[in-house]
């Protein structure tokens, strides 16, 4: 019996060489936007790496230990695991805000963003239909716990990563969490 498609996920990856090739290919792609995104209709309702649109301040604990709502953000990157969206025992996911840089982005800055050598940030190129007036950069330093229901009620998935962009994001997240802090350099 064929069970109706409910979700889609990519299998775990164990081959560093394959990952290495995938990362090089996407970073060196002449048309980064074309290589970066997949159809939002492929896969489940929400996946890791999805770009969500909804307006909210960023909830933070500030420098004096006060809970604050900071600024207004329109776009968010899902960094929580895809499988958590299908588990009843996981109520929350994690998203990070996408900061904006007005276009045209200075040449050096665009080289920095496109090199994917930033430890704490992740550049998201324009997807089809995106506002071309700004460049979007995720900030791994400000993750926000978001109830999963928001992802399907208030928020809208406006872009979904291709497999190679997802591999790049995954690698960047692991580098962010496991990076050498320079003390032993």
């Amino acid at each position, binding site marked *: 019996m064929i069970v109706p498609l409910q979700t889609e996920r990519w299998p775990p*990856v164990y081959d560093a060489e394959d990952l290495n090739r995938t990362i090089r290919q996407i970073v060196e792609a002449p048309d980064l936007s074309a290589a970066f995104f997949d159809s939002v209709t492929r896969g489940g309702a929400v996946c890791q790496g999805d770009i969500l649109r909804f307006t909210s301040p960023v909830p933070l604990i500030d420098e004096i230990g006060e809970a604050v*709502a900071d*600024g207004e953000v329109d776009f968010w990157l899902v960094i929580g695991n895809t499988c958590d969206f299908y588990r009843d025992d996981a109520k929350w996911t994690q998203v990070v805000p996408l900061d904006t840089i007005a276009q045209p*982005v200075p040449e050096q800055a665009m080289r*920095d963003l496109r090199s994917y*050598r930033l*430890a704490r940030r992740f550049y998201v190129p324009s997807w089809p239909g995106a506002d071309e007036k700004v460049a979007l950069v995720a900030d791994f330093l400000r993750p926000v716990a978001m109830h999963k229901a928001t992802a399907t009620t208030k928020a809208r998935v406006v872009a979904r990563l291709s497999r190679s962009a997802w591999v790049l994001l995954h690698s960047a997240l692991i580098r962010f969490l496991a*990076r050498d802090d320079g003390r032993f350099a």
Partner: protein
Amino acid sequence: MIPYVPAYADVAVSYRLPAQIEQVQDPKLRQSSVLLGKPPASPQPISALMESAAAYVRAIAVLPADPEADRRIEELISAQPRRGTRRPLRRK
């Protein structure tokens, strides 16, 4: 009926049960599988997770982090016009 998958089964295998999946024809997803049903609830063996994480760590070494690039981008983003204010979440 979905066959029983022991908790210690290799995760790559447990997610590729023939009854649950079909191979994707799209070349971009050729190495992927479409899961027809919920992922198994069994915890993944930590060794499999570590192996996968280690592969990512080795792979991202092709793009070593550049702290100077981080500094330049932070400076640029700080200089952008700011939307909204910072306000306390608790009433005093």
